[in-house]
């Protein structure tokens, strides 16, 4: 290991509209073992939050074994090193250590939260979980049963049916189209060798991204990440995932299910995080359906007509595709009317774009609310990882406001057309009296 220890301190205030507190500065550190991380030091609360991500996630599941990464995530705290499942769980509880593991589409993500006083045990447990998971027979069988029960339950849930089918239609023959939680059949096929292979191939230092927040100094943070991640392989062994464009635009698929409320999922193409039009699209989406209580869709569907409790759209940017995704739920006999309103608002936004007033308000909201994403250690650690994954640069929080401000009305109108001048892929799950064919 190199004895060199570098700490590049960017001393950046997280830029909150005119307010700057020196406590919230992001530092890039490199550990003695050469592992990079972003750090925000804060000793107000005797806690440490550490978030991390490895490239891979559900994307790395073999085509015939979807749900593998998800199953690994459910098993990492079920025994590792010389600690069996029961002992591992007892250690976590005794020291109130929280370990979380999630298989997202493009990454396998994890989090650690610990009281500062128990950090030694916390780093030990996480190191064992990542480098020496046991996958003993009892926990593997038990967790497999639990996961199978969950996917079975999802087969009668309108939200799950709509979402799973939407992704399958949008991305046939691509990892994004496969169910991340697997199926009862695919979960049955997964072996301990599969679980071990996933860990061996995916958990590696070259695809690792780390964010740390808490009561720790630069040297301490460096030692911490070396102890947790230092023993991982240098390089991941991932099967390349191709870029893909979404399918199914203009299709409306109706799944009959006897439920009082019809669930609607809809969406179309999106645009990437590094696209020069990203911020214009972000603003347009906020005005169209992203603003939780202010958007056009919210106004038309809920406020004006009382058709739904909620309606929402978001930009979803991924490593290999980008989409705009939306959803709502309404009574069966109003599903047709609700869909017609959504389609009309989509058309109107594509044709006319937002007004200057809407654009100004959206900018003000998105700038002003940014600080609310940084008010707990866990949220900050999550932001540190996401900003790195999105390759936005350590000074992004400072630059973000100006990037939003730079979007002109002409940009927004052009990008509204680029984003929404499209037919949608729509899934409707509910009683048969739902919408008539309109596409």
């Amino acid at each position, binding site marked *: 290991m190199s004895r060199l220890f570098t700490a590049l301190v960017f001393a950046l205030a997280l830029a909150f509209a005119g307010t700057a507190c020196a406590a919230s500065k992001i530092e890039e550190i490199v550990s003695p073992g050469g592992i990079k991380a972003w750090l925000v030091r804060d000793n107000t609360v005797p*806690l440490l939050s550490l978030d991390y991500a490895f490239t891979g996630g559900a994307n790395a599941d073999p085509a015939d074994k979807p749900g593998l990464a998800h199953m690994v995530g459910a098993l990492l705290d079920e025994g590792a090193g010389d600690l069996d499942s029961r002992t591992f769980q007892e250690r976590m509880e005794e020291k*109130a250590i929280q370990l979380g593991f999630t298989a997202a589409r493009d990454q396998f993500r994890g989090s650690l939260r610990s009281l500062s006083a128990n950090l030694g045990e916390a780093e030990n447990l996480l190191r064992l979980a990542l480098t020496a998971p046991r996958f003993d027979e009892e926990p593997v069988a038990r967790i497999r049963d639990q996961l199978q029960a969950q996917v079975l339950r999802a087969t009668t849930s309108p939200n799950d049916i709509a979402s799973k089918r939407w992704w399958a239609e949008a991305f046939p023959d691509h990892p994004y189209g496969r169910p991340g939680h697997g199926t009862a059949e695919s979960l049955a096929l997964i072996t301990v060798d599969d679980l071990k292979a996933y860990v061996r191939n995916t958990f590696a230092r070259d695809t690792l991204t780390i964010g740390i927040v808490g009561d720790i100094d630069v040297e301490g943070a460096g030692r911490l990440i070396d102890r947790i991640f230092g023993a991982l392989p240098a390089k991941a062994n991932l099967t390349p995932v191709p870029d893909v464009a979404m399918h199914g635009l203009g299709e409306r698929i109706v799944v009959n299910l006897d439920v009082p409320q019809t669930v609607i999922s809809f969406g179309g193409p999106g645009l990437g995080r590094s696209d020069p039009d990203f911020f214009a699209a972000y603003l347009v989406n906020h005005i169209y359906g992203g603003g939780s209580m202010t958007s056009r869709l919210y106004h038309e569907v809920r406020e004006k007509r009382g058709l*739904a409790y909620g309606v929402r759209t978001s930009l979803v940017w991924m490593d290999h595709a980008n989409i705009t995704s939306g959803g709502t739920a309404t009574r069966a006999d109003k599903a047709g009317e609700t869909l017609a309103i959504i389609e009309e608002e989509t058309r109107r936004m594509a044709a006319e774009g937002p007004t200057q007033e809407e654009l100004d308000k959206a900018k003000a909201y998105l700038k002003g609310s940014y600080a609310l994403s940084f008010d707990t250690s866990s949220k900050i650690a999550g932001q540190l990882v996401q900003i790195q994954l999105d390759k936005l640069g350590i000074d992004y929080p400072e630059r973000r406001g100006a990037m939003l401000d730079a979007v002109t009305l002409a940009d927004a109108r052009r990008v509204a057309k680029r984003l929404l001048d499209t037919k949608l892929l729509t899934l409707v799950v509910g009683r048969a009296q739902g919408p008539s064919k309109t596409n």
Partner: protein
Amino acid sequence: MRCAGTLRAFTLHIFIRLLAFLSLCLALPASSALAAPSVTQFNLANGLAVVVIPDHRTPVVTHMLWYRVGAADEVTGKSGIAHFLEHLMFKGTAKNPAGRFSQQLASIGGQENAFTSSDYTGYFQRTSREHLGTLMEFEADRMTGLVLTDDVVASERNVILEERNQRIDNEPSARLGEQVQAAQYLNHPYHRPTIGWRHEMETLDRVDALNFYRLYYQPDNAVLIVAGDVTPEEVKELAEKTYGKLERRPALGPRIRPKEPPQIVERRVTFADLRVTQPSLQRSYLVPSYTTAKENEAEALDLLAFILGGGSNSRLNRSLVMEKRLATTAGAWFQGTSLDDTRFGVYATAAAGASLERVESAIDAEIELVLDKGVTAEELERSKSRMIADYVYAQDNQSTLARQYGAALTTGSSVEAVLARPERLRAVTADQVRDAARRYLDKRRSVTGYLIREGAPREEKKS
């Protein structure tokens, strides 16, 4: 703009107390950096209670106004009106017509929402700190200035009906839960679902909403919680200028609801639904809450719920899920924050091939074991450490803290009681946990609900 120079030296008073206990149980060194302003509370002249919880890490503020009124305060026949009014509170006032508050808030990057329970109704906003005064102006205005039209009420009624569909009617386990709760309370209004029974929600109108509003929305029936980058002094000054201008109204009487008679019969309900893929069961027992409990019975019940079913190491999980493989999930809970007597629950989802009867017998056997032999010193210590540590984790989230204090003060508890809770948890003995179990986990005080399948295929078409 304000930037605290003493960020590092600052923490909540709660911390000192927590650390004192933690240093006993977890060998935490007491930090020297903890010079401590405390959670501050005071009342305005018009009776509004105010609690300030400083957190100077980020220049944001959480502003919450809680009313001491919820679904259990509704008149019979008007179920859902407390929650419906919560929605209608966003429809504008004489001074600030519909949408102005939300638009103003959006323009400063604020977030808002509201919530209703059996005992309280709350409204909150989160913004950067300099807008606190504006939030208070708007919130104070809508305490007395609400204006409603029949059209607005009719449209929003459809929204709450869709909310009911989404939360309850589309979800078989939620529908069973509603039935279990209704059967649990023979006489107390907690038998009512907070969102309301559909047939009554459909009849709620403008007059119902305004009657409820005028009766309960007043300064001395409200609690203001401000958490974030603020000082008690500035909160007081801003609150005086806004809420302080509201007139004091004649005090509402004490919140006395119909009491439960002795519960002498075990109750059982079964709900069958086409969409159930795995049978499950939920049982609740009538038990005292943190407000109604004698001595430390509520703390004992909290620990009992954790030991019995609070996580992977709990007895129900180890026995039913890990050892016997009868269930895919099993656990227990205690809803301690409640003005009147509350519920303690156990639940499990059957594993493939296991009958609910066998699952229930296994739960009963675990409960019997606690009644007979009590809990071990080791599991009691482990559970205490974990539960007390959760109070430290809560310090990382100003919204969580604000909710803790708001819920306490609107359910007959106090700031002092919340601060003392870790200490009181620490003091509970194994005998007290066993005694609480013996006294309250009596099937005659319980309702057991079965959720079973009523199988049917689903079809599909593509257009």
